[in-house]
């Protein structure tokens, strides 16, 4: 397979088709990251689109010192964080509504602990538990467990030490565990 960096070089040289190949190759991973970070498919699609556009516009700044995918993840994370900040104000209006629903769900689950959750319900509850993590922990959980990245890669991406990644992941796992325990997952 032709390495990504060849296509990056071609894009810089003005070949319009080269970047399309990079989109084709990596959109699913960036979408996956955006989905876990933003918690819903619509925002994830918009953020993925924005991230690739941003990457295309600033492709000149790619230094060929890291992998294209690592750089692309960084662009994706930035876009998601901006997205999150922008939508937070919009969300504030909805919060009371979703909180009501979440409380009702939690109450229902605790009232009927033996009820077997449907697969989709269960998936939703796990996603909700991820959503409730602080954003740094959510990011590190997503990168490690869902994107199967190594400590070294995450450290490079987030510009911190592997030790920081390890301890943040550890906190995130414990935090997630306590959230999942209340959900009676099977």
């Amino acid at each position: 397979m032709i390495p990504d960096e060849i296509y990056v070089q071609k894009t810089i040289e003005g070949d319009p088709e080269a970047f399309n190949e990079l989109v084709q190759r990596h959109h699913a991973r960036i979408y996956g990251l955006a989905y876990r970070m933003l918690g819903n498919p619509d925002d994830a699609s918009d953020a993925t689109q924005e991230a690739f556009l941003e990457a295309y516009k600033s492709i000149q700044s790619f230094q060929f010192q890291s992998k294209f995918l690592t750089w692309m993840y960084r662009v994706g994370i930035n876009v998601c964080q901006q997205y999150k900040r922008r939508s937070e104000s919009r969300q504030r209006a909805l919060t009371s509504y979703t909180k009501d629903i979440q409380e009702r769900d939690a109450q229902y689950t605790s009232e009927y602990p033996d009820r077997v959750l449907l697969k989709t319900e269960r998936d939703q509850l796990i996603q909700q538990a991820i959503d409730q993590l602080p954003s740094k922990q959510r990011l590190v959980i997503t990168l490690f467990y869902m994107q199967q990245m190594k400590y070294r890669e995450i450290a490079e991406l987030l510009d911190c030490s592997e030790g920081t990644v390890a301890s943040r992941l550890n906190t995130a796992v414990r935090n997630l565990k306590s959230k999942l325990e209340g959900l009676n997952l099977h």
Partner: protein
Amino acid sequence: MSLDCKQVIEKFSLHQQPDLTYQEKIECRRHLIECKTCQSEYEEMLHTAAVLDSIPDPVPPPELVERIQTQIRETDSRSVLDFLVNPIARILVAVKLGPHPTFVNYTAMLFYLMLTIFMVKLTFFNSTEPSPVQLTRPPSPHVRIVRLGDVKHASLEAVKVEKEKPNEIPIQSTPSDFQ
């Protein structure tokens, strides 16, 4: 070499394992058997992985790639238009001056303001019609005689007539015209 707890969890985490040497793997396993803290932390990790693995990977909508590619194509055609809209910015980028966007915007605004003034001046103030100044100061004595009608010679009397009956003489004159 014995490993401490932090190192074990760091090294023995799920996707790190393929990177470890055989010796390191043995060391980690041995530590996990002996150390309860690392054992429970590692089990927690496995449990989380199992829970998170059980939820399906989000699948992007099929039209997403097309959407991204269309938007990039639009950006390309817009950047051609950019050259017409903001040539100064393009020139500065081309010579790698990299100025602040605000500076570029203000420079472009100034450029267009000057261009507009120049065009307006060229369109509206370049006519062959004589201006009011030219009327009060006719280019030749001949024109002056024709305009003043029956007043053949400029004199102080003529000035008086003009002042008393301004309607008869449509041209505004000043005494200095007749000096």
